[in-house]
C-alpha cells in the first residue's frame, strides 16, 4: 500500500500553485494518492517542473494512459509520477476536447513516454504535439479507428443478428 503523507501532498500542491496558479484546475486526495487536474497547455512545463524541482523530485514516470469521457466529449491523459527520493506518488490528469485532441508530449521530459504516448495515440487518437514518431504501435498500421474509445462496444451477448447454429448454440 502507498503511504499517504499529508505534509508531502500539501507541499506538492503549495509548490505547484505558487508556480502554476492558473494552470491547476483542482486537486483532491483520492483513496491511494493525491490527484491534480491541470490544463493541457501547461502539462509539459508542469511535468518538467515536477521532475527538476530540488524539493519535489518526481523523477520517475511510472505510467501514462489515455481516458475517454463520452459524457463530457473529452479525451484525457493520466500520468502517474513517483519520487524515488521522497517515496511519494502523485497522479496528474489532463483533458482535451475530442474535436481538438492535442496534448503536449512528455517525450522531452522522459524518453520512456515515447511508447506510452504511441500506445495512447493508438487506442484513443490523442495527438501528442512534439512527439518524434507518433505512429500506431500495437494495432495494424492501416487501422482507422481508435478502439478504446467508448463508442466501440465489445460484442453484446444478447445480440440476435448472428447465426450461431453452426456451433450448436
Amino acid at each position: 500500500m502507498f503511504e499517504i503523507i499529508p505534509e508531502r501532498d500539501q507541499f506538492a500542491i503549495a509548490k505547484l500553485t505558487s508556480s502554476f496558479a492558473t494552470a491547476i484546475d483542482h486537486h483532491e486526495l483520492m483513496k491511494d494518492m493525491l490527484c491534480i487536474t491541470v490544463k493541457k497547455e501547461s502539462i509539459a512545463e508542469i511535468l518538467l517542473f515536477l521532475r527538476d524541482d530540488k524539493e519535489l523530485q518526481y523523477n520517475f514516470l511510472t505510467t501514462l494512459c489515455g481516458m475517454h469521457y463520452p459524457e463530457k466529449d473529452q479525451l484525457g491523459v493520466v500520468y502517474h509520477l513517483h519520487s524515488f527520493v521522497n517515496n511519494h506518488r502523485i497522479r496528474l490528469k489532463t483533458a482535451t476536447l475530442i474535436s481538438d485532441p492535442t496534448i503536449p508530449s512528455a517525450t522531452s521530459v522522459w524518453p520512456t513516454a515515447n511508447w506510452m504516448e504511441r500506445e495512447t495515440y493508438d487506442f484513443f487518437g490523442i495527438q501528442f504535439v512534439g512527439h518524434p514518431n507518433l505512429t500506431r504501435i500495437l494495432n495494424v498500421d492501416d487501422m482507422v479507428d481508435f478502439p478504446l474509445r467508448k463508442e466501440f462496444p465489445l460484442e453484446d451477448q444478447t445480440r440476435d443478428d448472428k447465426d450461431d447454429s453452426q456451433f450448436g448454440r
Partner: protein
Amino acid sequence: MAKEVNSDYWDKDRVKAEEPKEYNTLNVGPTHPATHGVFQNIMLMDGEYIVSTEQTIGYIHRAFEKIAERRPFYQITPLTDRLNYCSAPLNNMGWHMTVEKLLGIETPKRVDYLRIVIMELARIADHIICNSVIGVDSGALTGFTYMFQDREFIYEIYEEICGSRLTTNMGRIGGFERNFSPKAWEKIKYFLEFFPAKLKEFETLLMRNRIFMDRTINVGAFPLDRALAYGFTGPNLRACGLDYDVRVMNPYCSYEEFEFTIPVGQNGDTYDRFMVRQEEMKQSLSIIQQALDKLDALEDKETYYARDPRFVLPPKEKVYNNMEALIWHFKIVMGETDIPAGEVYHCIEGANGELGFYLVSDGGRTASRLHFRRPGFIYYQAYPEMVQGTMLSDAILTMSSMNVIAGELDA
C-alpha cells in the same frame, strides 16, 4: 579486354575513404528463436555491428484493456495470466490485491503469507527461465536443461494448489479458492530442501566461467540515469545500481514483516542482470522459509479467504443448503454486484519490474477503465539505445538478459 586501372586501385586506404559503405538490413524476428517471442527487430548492420534498430511489436495484441471493460472482476484474472506468462501467479495476485484495494477488503494474515509463498515461487520460476536462457544464448545449453527440471517442479506445486500450470488463474478476490493441500505443503518444503543445491550447481556452471564472463561483462551496459529516464524497474534497474524494489518502497501483502536484502549491480550489464536475478532467487527462498515459519506460528490453519460476501464466493455446502448463500453465489457468478466508484493504482514487484494496475470504476458492474503498467513494454523501448554499436551476437544476449516477454509487450 581487361579494364585499365590505376596502380593504387586496390589500395586499402583509398577504398576506405572513397567507396560508399555498404550496410545490410537484417530482420531479427518476428518468430526467430532468439527473440523469445513474437516481435521483430529490423537492424541496419555494418558487417557484424549494429548501426540502428527499429522495433516492431504488437503481433500478439489481444486487447486486454478493452475486454476488461465488459467483464466482471473475477473474469479479468485469466487475462492477467497472459501478460507475463512466465510468472502468471504474480500477475493474478497483483490483480486481486488491486480489486481488494478498491473495495477496501482486508485480507487475513494467513492469506497474505500464502500469497507470498506463491509469489516468491513464481519469481523463482521466472528468474530460472531468464537466467538459464542467458546461458543458452551465450552457447551453454547445459544449465538450461538442469534448471528446467526445477521450474517443472514449481509448476507441479501450482498444479497442486490451483489445478493448472502455465496460465494459472490462481486465487480469488479476497484469497484462494481452496486451502493448500498437504501434498502441496510437502512439495513446497521439498523444493526448499533441494533447490539451493541445484541453484548452486547452476551458478558454478556460469558465474566464474571465463567464456560466459567474456560474453556478458560490459555487454549491453546501460547507465543508471538513462535507465531511470527509460522507466526501468525490477532486476534491470537494480543491475544499474539503484535499490528500488516495490516490496520495500511500498510494502503490500505484509512484505514489511519480512527480512530480505535487495541485491544491486554496478554496471547495468548483462552479467549484473544475471547476478541480480541469481541473488534474488536466494532471497526469495529465504522469504518463502520465513513465510512458512510465520504460517506455522499462526494458530489459524483454515482461513484462506477474506469474508466479504459481496465478492468472495460462499462455500459450496452453504450454496446448496442456504438460500442467502445461493443468492450471493448467483450474484457474484453473474457479475451482478455493483462496484463502488473510485480509482486506484496498485503495483507489485513483478518478476521483471513494477507491475501496475490502474483501475477506474464509475459505479457500474465492470471497470470503466483498466490500464496495465507492463514493465516489459516500458523498458524494451530502450533496446535500440542499448545495442547501438555492439555486435549482433551481443545484442541477442542483451535481449535475453532484459527478460522481455511478448505477452507483456502486447497486452
